């Protein structure tokens, strides 16, 4: 078990392209941290630098209290699960799981015990004699996890392990990974581009973008208190709506949309947003905070009229898409709401959950 620490870590490729631009991150013992972000944000490069598969151009990587910049992967006491499983195709499941232990000259009975224990935990005992090609995608990923678990390493690294699985299996394996971490609470760094995976698995989520860390926090914290426009837009599905507004004082602090609609800022946010009076900013509001008009609405809810463009019934909810002055907006309404394309729908905006974003700094104020 170990802490992982990244201090001013830089990855620069030939030609001066920086994939990771001096990031700092502290990962606690037993913690499950997910690095999430779009393609090319530097999350996989960061993981590979922790693993020792990429040279570190600058800064320091610490594992378990030691700087490991120049330590080869095999001496870092880490285990990694890859997106395409990376099982040795000519070896049986048992041999795959035992390979690392054999190389480390573990006694045979110890290897047998560890592999059996891991196989039991992952429910792959009947598969131990099979070759990888005789396994399904989910089974292969379990074996890959088994190969990591038997080593009992200081740190588990997962590089988009569920991306090759179909949607149903992905959900199932996600639960299994969480269960395994509960049983074997090893420090884990997990990379994914799927924000749902990040939210469901992580103790803390690290949102990366263009080689920097945008925000680090617990899933709920990121969801409810995003630090930047990028995090606000990346976390949550459907994504948060962003509308250009003017902050005005019109018998109380309000934000005025491009179509003239004025929405009052709730009293508890007036102190926070007051200093921005007179500025053009961006209003961020999640689709679930734009709903049908309800009879028992709480304070801070404002009404607005939306010209419905597309209606997407999802079963337990319906997504209503419309435009406000050319900006696409999505609302999440009750499936019984009578929303039809090309008709107006009255919506409630829960301004208690509004965010204001500075257009210059892209920071949530």
């Amino acid at each position, binding site marked *: 078990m170990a802490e992982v620490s990244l201090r001013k870590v830089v990855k620069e490729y030939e030609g001066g392209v920086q994939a990771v631009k001096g990031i700092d991150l502290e990962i606690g013992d037993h913690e499950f941290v997910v690095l999430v972000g779009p393609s090319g944000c530097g999350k996989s490069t960061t993981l590979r630098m922790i*693993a*020792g598969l990429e040279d570190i151009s600058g800064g320091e990587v610490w594992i378990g209290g030691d700087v490991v910049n120049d330590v*080869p992967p*095999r001496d870092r006491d*880490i285990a990694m699960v890859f997106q395409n499983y*990376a099982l*040795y*195709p000519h070896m049986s499941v048992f041999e795959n799981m035992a390979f*690392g232990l054999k190389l480390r000259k573990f006694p045979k009975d110890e290897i047998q015990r560890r592999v059996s224990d891991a196989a039991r935990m992952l429910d792959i005992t009947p598969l131990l004699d099979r070759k990888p090609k005789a396994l399904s995608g989910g089974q292969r990923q379990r074996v890959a996890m088994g190969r990591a678990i038997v080593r009992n390493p200081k740190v588990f690294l997962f590089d988009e392990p569920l991306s090759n699985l179909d949607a149903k299996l992905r959900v199932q394996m996600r639960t299994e990974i969480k269960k395994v971490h509960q049983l074997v609470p090893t420090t884990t760094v997990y990379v994914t581009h799927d924000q749902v995976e990040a939210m469901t698995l992580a103790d803390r989520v690290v949102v990366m973008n263009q080689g920097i860390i945008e925000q680090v926090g617990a899933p709920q914290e990121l969801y409810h208190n995003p630090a930047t426009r990028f995090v606000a837009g990346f976390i949550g599905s459907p994504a948060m709506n962003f509308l250009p507004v003017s902050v005005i004082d019109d018998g109380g602090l309000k934000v005025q949309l491009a179509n003239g609609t004025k929405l009052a800022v709730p009293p508890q946010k007036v102190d926070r947003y007051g200093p921005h009076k007179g500025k053009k900013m961006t209003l961020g509001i999640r689709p679930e905070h734009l709903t049908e008009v309800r009879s028992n609405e709480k304070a801070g809810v404002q009404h607005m009229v939306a010209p419905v463009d597309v209606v997407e019934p999802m079963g337990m909810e319906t997504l209503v898409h419309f435009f406000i002055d050319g900006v696409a907006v999505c609302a999440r309404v009750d499936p019984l709401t009578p929303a039809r394309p090309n008709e107006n729908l009255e919506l409630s905006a829960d301004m208690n959950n509004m965010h204001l974003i500075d257009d210059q700094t892209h920071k949530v104020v």
Partner: protein
Amino acid sequence: MSATTADAARARAASRAGSLERQRRWALWGSYAALSCFVVAFLTPPFYMIITSLKTSAEISAEKGNPWLVYTPTFDNFIELATSPSFQRYFLNSVWVTAMVVVISMAIAILAAFSLARMGFKGSQTIATGVFLTYLVPPSLLFIPLFQIVGFLNLLDNTWVLVLLFPTLAVPFCTWIMIGYFGSIPKELDEAALIDGASYMQILFQIFIPVALPGIIAATIFAFTVGWGAFLYPLAFLYKGEQLVLTVGIVSELIRGDVFAWGKIMAACVMGALPPILIYTFLMDYYIAGLTAGATKG
């Protein structure tokens, strides 16, 4: 959609399907015709070789009868050759030279291909291209300068000269085949092994060689063919009977001036061709898999 429109659409679909079927049939007929020409052109010489090897000298030189048929088949040519000490020596020399060439070429090619394909050092791409370019130089251009070198090394008229020279022909192509094969193995496999605690040599021997076996077999077959079938270098560098290999031994032993022992020559060719034929027959699938590995690199 009305019934009439639906019927018309169905008729159009059926006509398209029929047209596709017709095209496929024509393509198949074309393929069979082309392949038949190829098979006839390719198999006629070996067929004639086998037929002639089964004839007596009298039947070969007889002016009557169809030369494509054997009237009094005999294995005398084979028996005489098999019991001839010089032919046995040529055969064993060929076996020894080929075995050495295969072992040396594959050892070099596997190590070179692994380092060029996987170790990602500066200039590896250029070196890989350079290795392949050396394969494009015709051996017939090289044997005169090589003669100087071999003479300097005092290896003329010694089978070791072939053990030294044949790998220069086999290694570039074998390395190229192996680079393609190693390149098709997912990078994550060596990364997983590195994290599991393997050294590069352990990765090569415990992961890459077993996984790339079809490629290794393909390269081995190529090295074998180079060692077994080469004619020019043995002809240029070997003279004495006890040092000769099969390809030049047949020529020097069975052609005396303008006297050609055709029956024995053909029998010797059949016996000489047998090992490659057997090897290709049993390992053909691996050979094809090895040569096409780079094509499906994903």
